[in-house]
């Protein structure tokens, strides 16, 4: 495309070390160097975490660590197995909760909802993703946990596997909804028409053609959701009870449980630097990092396959008959397994609430229904299915409403001018949250100042200069991995690299750098998207006028892509403002009653951490907890709405 024109337009060159170098090449390598930062960060994360784990590997042994049944650091027992099991169980529960809801909502949005409701419904799911994890945790702690305690017969504690799974499930919903919705609505219209033209109902078309055709995208969505759930820290830590035990029996949903992330977050603050315990937490982070990496890579591979399927560049392989037969058999077995899982989940849930008889009864009813629908008229099945889908959508919207109204209605009484501009007193029970608001502001501003230039430059490089070379793919991979890395791992990395190694101490500066690493992928990706969407003709028009590539980028491409870049920036501000785990060991203190002179080497208070602190350490500070949660929610959600507004505003205005 552009390559041919490059010889034509005016080429600026200069002599460096006796060789003629084109200005455009210089710029290109400069941009590439910046973009490579993502790779360096990933390598840095792996390096620092692995280095930190060495002591533990030596003292405990990798096998003993992974296989040990008991995690009790004060007795020098570092068995991570219960934590790994805990992580896996909470995640399974979360997906069992989120997949039916998320998939149902995705199908509703793309197949059932009238066109004008589609965007608002998608927006609702985006609001879910805007709520900070610590606010979910707080809601879980004060609403969900007591609810379970009072409503599940025989429950002795509300903090449990179930509470963690429900909460994580809610948090995984937006990922699943948006990716699955994307996959479903990108199934070519011609499939739907073909099916309808054969006399299929809409539901038959959805269930037999559209969803199967989108299945890889849906799997990718699920796996991404799994990745998110596994890496989640604050929310799980606040509601799972954190006992490092195996549920007894293994299906006991009301058993407390403890995850890898929660262990790191809880113990890192108290442990002495350089001990085996300290190192064991790094090893935990390494294990988590590897698991999440595998999960996310799987989902990426599946996504790529899906794109390939709809826009095939090469004809699909022709398989042997035997292979096809085996595949058919496998898919039949898979179907059975699916039904078994659905029935199993129903059984476990009903038994928990209403006992074994009711469980048996309801499983029979569901099986009966499955059987009967084979023979009832397709139109009735469609009604049933659409009814269920609408119900699911209602539940999703309802969940969001419940969370928001609870926090708003309980938080409003706490809000006052004093609450906003006074220091806390009585350990947070009284006074205001002024230093936390200010601290969050400081954190965000610095983070953005660091991350935006790097992110935007990387985004430009990736969209305008990067070809499919190995190094570029490396950079892309690095950014993808950064995006999927659990936030607590960033926290640990920040502590090891900035707090300890660079000796910044727990400080604003360490917090900035850590958060900057965290939000970098958001900015890179939105920039890349925005720049890519600038039409080729526009770029060529500028090049054809004799502008260099760099002039074209700065004078034509960037201004056109500006709204997209701003949107990405705003989104990342929201993210930075709401994160807790990454700043927990790098930048914050729990309590400040006065502020000294501004220094980047001093720690700050921050809203998310303050909320966590109040919720977990100061249980009677009810009003201030809700007040803090509301302020945080307002800040983060208004940031997100600004971004959304901007995006819609410009997407309407600019119609290439």
């Amino acid at each position, binding site marked *: 495309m552009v390559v041919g024109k490059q010889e034509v337009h005016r080429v600026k060159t200069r002599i460096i070390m006796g060789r003629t170098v084109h200005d455009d090449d210089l710029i290109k390598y400069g941009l590439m160097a910046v973009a490579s930062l993502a790779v360096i960060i990933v390598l840095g994360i792996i390096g620092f975490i692995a280095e930190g784990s060495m002591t533990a590997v030596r003292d405990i042994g990798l096998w003993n660590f992974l296989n040990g049944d008991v995690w009790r650091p004060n007795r020098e027992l570092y068995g991570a197995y219960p934590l790994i099991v805990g992580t896996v169980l909470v995640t399974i529960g979360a997906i069992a909760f989120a997949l039916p809801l998320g998939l149902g909502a995705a199908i509703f949005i793309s197949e059932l909802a*009238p*066109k004008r409701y589609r965007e608002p419904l998608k927006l609702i799911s985006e609001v879910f993703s805007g709520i900070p994890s610590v606010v979910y945790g707080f809601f879980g702690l004060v609403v969900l946990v007591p609810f379970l305690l009072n409503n599940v017969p025989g429950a002795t504690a509300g903090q449990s596997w179930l509470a963690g799974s429900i909460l994580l499930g809610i948090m995984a919903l937006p990922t699943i909804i948006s990716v699955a919705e994307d996959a479903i609505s990108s199934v*070519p219209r*011609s*499939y*739907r*028409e*073909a*099916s*309808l*033209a*054969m*006399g*299929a*109902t809409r539901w*038959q078309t959805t269930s*037999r*053609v559209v969803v*199967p*055709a989108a299945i890889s995208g849906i799997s990718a969505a699920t796996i991404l959701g799994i990745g998110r759930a596994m890496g989640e820290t604050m929310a799980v830590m606040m509601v799972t009870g954190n006992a490092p035990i195996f549920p007894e029996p293994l299906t006991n949903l009301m058993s407390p449980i403890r995850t890898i992330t929660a262990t790191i977050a809880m113990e890192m603050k108290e442990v002495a630097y350089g001990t085996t315990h300290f190192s064991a937490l790094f090893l935990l982070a390494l294990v988590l990092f590897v698991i999440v990496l595998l999960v996310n890579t799987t989902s990426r591979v599946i996504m790529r396959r899906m794109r390939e*399927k709809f826009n*095939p560049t090469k*004809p*699909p*392989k*022709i*398989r042997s*008959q035997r292979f*096809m*037969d085996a*595949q*058919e058999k496998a898919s039949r077995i898979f179907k059975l397994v699916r039904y078994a899982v659905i029935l199993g989940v129903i059984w476990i849930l009903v038994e928990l609430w209403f006992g074994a008889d009711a469980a048996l009864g309801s499983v029979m009813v569901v099986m009966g229904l499955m059987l009967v629908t084979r023979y009832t008229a*397709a*139109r009735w099945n469609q009604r049933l299915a659409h009814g269920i889908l609408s119900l699911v959508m209602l539940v999703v919207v309802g969940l969001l409403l419940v969370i928001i109204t609870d926090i708003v209605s309980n938080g409003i009484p706490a809000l006052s001018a004093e609450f906003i501009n006074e220091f806390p007193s009585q350990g947070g029970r009284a006074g205001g949250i002024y230093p936390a608001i200010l601290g969050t502001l400081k954190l965000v501003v610095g983070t953005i100042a660091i991350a935006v230039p790097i992110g935007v430059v990387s985004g430009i490089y990736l969209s305008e200069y990067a070809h499919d070379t190995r190094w570029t793919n490396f950079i892309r991979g690095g950014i993808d991995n950064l995006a999927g890395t659990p936030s607590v791992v960033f926290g640990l990395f920040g502590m090891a690299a900035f707090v300890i190694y660079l000796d910044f101490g727990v400080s604003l500066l360490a917090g900035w750098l850590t958060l900057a690493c965290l939000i970098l992928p958001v900015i890179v990706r939105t920039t890349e998207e925005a720049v890519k969407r600038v039409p080729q003709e526009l770029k060529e028009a500028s090049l054809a006028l004799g502008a260099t590539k760099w002039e074209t980028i700065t004078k034509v491409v960037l201004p056109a892509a500006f709204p997209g870049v701003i949107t990405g920036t705003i989104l990342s501000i929201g993210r930075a403002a709401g994160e807790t785990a990454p700043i927990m060991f790098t930048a914050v203190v729990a309590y400040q009653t006065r502020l000294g002179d501004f220094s980047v080497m001093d720690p700050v208070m921050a809203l998310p951490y303050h909320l966590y602190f109040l919720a977990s350490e100061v249980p009677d500070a009810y009003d201030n907890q809700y007040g803090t949660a509301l302020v945080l929610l307002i800040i983060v959600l208004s940031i997100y709405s600004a971004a959304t507004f901007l995006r819609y505003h410009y997407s309407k205005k600019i119609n290439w």
Partner: protein
Amino acid sequence: MSTNLIDIKGLNLWYGENQALHDVSMSVKPNSITALIGPSGCGKSTLLRSINRMNDIIAGCRVEGEITFHDKNILAPETDVMALRKKIGMIFQKPNPFPMSIKDNVTYGPRLHGVTDRESLDKLVEECINKSALWSEVQDRLGASAMSLSGGQQQRLCIARALSVNPEVILMDEPTSALDPIATNKIEDLAQDLKKDYTVVIVTHNMQQASRISDYTGFMYMGKLIEFDKTENIFENPSEELTERYITGRFG
């Protein structure tokens, strides 16, 4: 009882504010091939899709008039649209097999309508693929993905798929426009064969095609059916000047 299988009377159709069909009337005789020709955007597809009510799925589409099929008005609200579409199959411009195996493509329809017995499904697969003149090419790879077929093969698979639910009418919307000449020939031959058992309505841009295979031809222009007659009359002795100008290529 009329001798026509389908009778269209005074059909008007709007997409939102835009009227796409103006007072169209025509009839389709059983076991014939009826071709619809006309310049792009004149409403051929729209008319065709009215016959199996595929326009229902387009938001803002409104129809007035009457289309009878076996003397029953299919535009009446109480029509069972699913049953209607089972009786009136459709082939699209771009081959659109499902991303499933060849076999599953053909069994999709029968399964929808309640056939589950494997033996009869297998028999049906062979029968339909045979009828669509594809059997010799795919018989030893029925389990392969339909996406691995060539465009022409895919289109014939789509025809087999349409035949699988035992329709009476097959609507074809420019079924060969995405195919090369050889594949086009095969589809044209196939259409001739199908006439024995089915009634075919075909939209085409290709006037040779219309004159080669059809018994009746309708010429449309700007949403109106300008002329409808036996094919030889339309091509040799059109009564409208517009038609003559179009078929002789002196248009616009």
